[in-house]
């Protein structure tokens, strides 16, 4: 027996040694030697792009990846100034490259002249020229090609080509942001022309889908060299890039949808950083910072993501402005921001971000005041009744269904706080959350909701025509297009929207913006909550990442990213 026991112990030691050796081998393999050199970067994001075609399907993950590989003509930079990336000069009326014109119908249009940077080349060495401009216009104008920014192409009535690099766009609409043509992203005619032979099949046959690692598809500092669908995308330097040289030899963008796993990947050095554009929600990021903040640079960047509660104004109770104001006064948004978000997400007073040039403080502000909220509800005919829920003269309870995107942990937390606070003023809230596809695809456009919590994402100085103009209320007649889901109708708001859009004088436009925000804050078609922050988790050695706070991803300025 002792012998057998000794043999067993010996076998155990051998097993332990074998296991130790195996683990040591695994450990050696798990940290490739070149990973430490900082000439490679691995970025974690929570989404994988469906397509890499820059003009089909709007998706944050695609914008993020293509920010490194594709140059739009114009973008808003981190200072929220419109910048030329692919053009040499922004057209302005002052420099003569933008010329307002009178149209036959009495409206105004504008002619815009752009010149492509003469050193711009696709990743296969073919120069970027006006051939690409004309081809892209043809694709964009063709209704069968399923291009996302159909509105821009609809307003471009004609293109005149001056030479290989200079062209003039003729637009049938004059707006203050006339020079911004960021949705006009060039397609390489020499590669995509064959795929466009049958426009209805273009979205399928585009080489961005069939041959995404073809270097000629990309004109940015990097080109996509490997795609593992659903898993990762590898970018390597574009040898024909003539701008400032990018530092990293190789960049891997890895999609990890679960944010807890994303953070664990960061801690294990599987990824170097988490992109704020597609990173964890703020509450998770705050928890991560408490535990591991010293190991990383954490940047919180509030921006143009406006969280709010849409109120369906077709509901009789919500059609009463006093009820809407009472709901806002009865919610302690400052406490929500402080307790749930450590004050990192500023409370919103209107739809316009404080970062926008048209922002004004000179509007009504609603601090938490449950006493005043109760008084307003009394005045509106909603009186205290048994069970703590107010009722009107007909005995109907003041009760609403609140919807948001199911599974969004942060919104669900806010929902619960609001439910509790509104209960204190006698308003019953029943929470009925829906998957995003149901909420955005069905409930909101069909206006099948009482209250809906979600976010509007806009561009800098974006005129809120689609969300406030009375012609943008979705219904069967307009095919449920438009985003004025609350059903807000105001002749004054319609006038302000039209005037702001076409006002070229910045001072006058600022006054119009202020009037628009004031009207919103008085009418409260929706309840403003806060401006969401993106959280960037960066390694301490990485410098130059400048969050924009607008819809343009940090990767557009990838050449500024350097290790220190």
């Amino acid at each position, binding site marked *: 027996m002792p012998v057998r026991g000794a043999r067993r112990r010996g076998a155990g030691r051998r097993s332990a040694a074998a296991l130790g050796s195996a*683990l040591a081998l*695994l*450990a050696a*393999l*798990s940290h*490739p030697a070149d990973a430490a050199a900082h000439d490679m970067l*691995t970025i974690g994001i929570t989404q994988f792009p*469906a*397509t890499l075609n820059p003009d089909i*399907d*709007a998706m944050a993950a695609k914008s993020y990846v293509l920010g490194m590989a594709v140059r739009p003509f114009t973008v808003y930079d981190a200072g929220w100034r419109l910048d030329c990336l692919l053009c040499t000069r922004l057209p302005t009326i002052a420099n003569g490259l933008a010329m307002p014109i009178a149209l036959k119908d009495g409206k105004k249009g504008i002619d815009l002249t752009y010149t492509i940077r003469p050193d711009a080349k696709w990743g296969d060495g073919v120069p970027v020229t006006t051939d690409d401009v004309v081809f892209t216009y043809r694709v964009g104008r063709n*209704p*069968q090609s*399923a291009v*996302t920014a*159909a*509105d*821009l192409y609809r307003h471009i009535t004609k293109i005149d080509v001056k030479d290989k690099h200079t062209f003039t766009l003729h637009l049938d609409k004059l707006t203050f942001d006339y020079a911004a043509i960021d949705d006009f992203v060039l397609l390489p005619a020499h590669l995509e022309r064959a795929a466009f032979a049958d426009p*209805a099949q273009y*979205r*399928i046959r585009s080489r*961005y889908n*069939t041959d995404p690692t073809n270097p000629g598809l990309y004109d940015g500092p990097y080109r996509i060299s*490997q795609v*593992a*669908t*659903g898993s*990762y995308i*590898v970018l390597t330097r574009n040898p024909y890039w003539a701008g400032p040289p990018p530092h990293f030899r*190789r960049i*891997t963008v*890895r*999609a*990890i*949808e*679960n944010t*807890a*796993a994303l953070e*664990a*990947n960061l*801690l*294990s050095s*599987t990824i170097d950083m988490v992109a704020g554009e597609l990173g964890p929600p703020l509450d998770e990021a705050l928890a991560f910072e408490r535990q591991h903040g010293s190991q990383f640079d954490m940047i919180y960047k509030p921006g143009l993501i406006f969280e709010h509660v849409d109120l369906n104004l077709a509901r009789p109770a919500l059609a009463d402005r006093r009820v809407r104001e009472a709901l806002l006064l009865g919610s302690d948004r400052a406490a929500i921001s402080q307790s749930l978000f450590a004050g990192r997400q500023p409370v919103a007073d209107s739809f316009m971000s404080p970062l926008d040039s048209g922002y004004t403080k000179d509007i009504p502000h609603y601090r938490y005041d449950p006493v005043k909220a109760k008084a307003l509800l009394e005045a509106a005919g909603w009186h205290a009744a048994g069970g703590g829920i107010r009722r009107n003269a007909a005995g109907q309870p003041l009760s609403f269904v609140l919807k948001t995107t199911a599974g969004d942990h942060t919104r669900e937390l806010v929902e619960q706080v609001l439910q509790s606070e509104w209960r204190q003023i006698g308003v019953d809230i029943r929470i009925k959350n829906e998957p*995003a*596809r*149901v909420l*955005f*695809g*069905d409930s*909101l*456009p069909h206006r099948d909701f009482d209250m809906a919590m979600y976010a509007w994402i806009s561009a800098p100085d974006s005129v809120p*025509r*689609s*969300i406030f103009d009375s012609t*943008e209320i979705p219904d069967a007649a*307009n*095919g*449920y*297009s438009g*985003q004025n889901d609350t059903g807000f109708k105001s002749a004054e708001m319609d006038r302000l929207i039209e005037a702001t859009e076409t006002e070229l004088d910045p001072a006058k436009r600022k006054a119009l913006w202020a009037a628009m925000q004031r009207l919103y804050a008085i009418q409260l078609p929706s309840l403003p909550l806060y401006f969401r922050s993106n959280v960037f988790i960066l390694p301490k050695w990485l410098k130059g990442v400048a969050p924009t706070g607008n819809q343009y991803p940090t990767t557009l300025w990838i050449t500024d990213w350097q290790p220190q």
Partner: protein
Amino acid sequence: MIRFAAIRLIEIAVVLVLLSFAIYVLIGLMPGDPIDLMRSADPHMTAADIAHLKAVYGLDRPLLARYLAWATGALAGNLGYSRLFAEPVLTALLPRLGNSLVLMGSSFVLALLIALVLGSLAARRPGSRLDEAINLLCFAGVSLPTFWLALVLILVFAAGLGWLPASGVATAGIGGLGDRLRHLVLPVATLTAASVGGYTRYVRAAMLEALAQDHIRTARAKGASEVRIIVHHALRGALVPVTTILALSFGSLVSGALVTETMFAYPGMGKLIFDAVMGNDYNLALAGLLLAAVVTMAANLAADLAYGWLDPRVTYR
């Protein structure tokens, strides 16, 4: 037996047709089609744009017409185009199917081997400390939430010790066999831990019944060793009920493991099917779900045929 197999194959074909119709209709009836979602993201979309895009994507036609068009194409070998992945369905599906087969197959084999050993040991002396310890392990494995176990494994072995990669199928730009195996360790361990408890309980129950049979008592009386009794006499009989359970599990080899794949960012069939259903990608969802159904039914047929080999008393009518 051939007649039995032929009848079962016809039944499988009928079930597949009915299933494909049911899946197509159910996905089609879910609110919010892809264009509805595009509309919510693009404030400039007009009613004409929406109508046009629905026509381009074929969403303007009645559901039945779309199903018939799909079925006609599928019978000709064309499973269509995945809208979500912007590539043909087979191109989107095959790499993930391979990944799932490797992941699920490895964990399936590992869990089965462990379950056979543990189940047999537990059944040998029911009520003993060893049996109780194995039972405890089984219940722990069954009870632990997969996402939690996955996260703990990532935090310990990837983040803490740095021994193993935390996610993916392979390191970008490396991707050799060793690298791929390292990426498999944690997800396979998670899935094995989650399934081994259940299998062990089935094996234990089947072995208990088998060990109580007369022929086992006879074998013991003849002086056969305990190992021989278990391996040669009891296990074969015990495998009949276990085979049924295993056959039902076969479908998961191709339907994937959604939670584990999500936690380890492992591109497999579970995540693919989930994304396809949620994204209204009819073609892809259908192909994925039907494939899982085919494999499950084929495995059940194989199990039915295997009964005859395992138990000579079984006849086919």
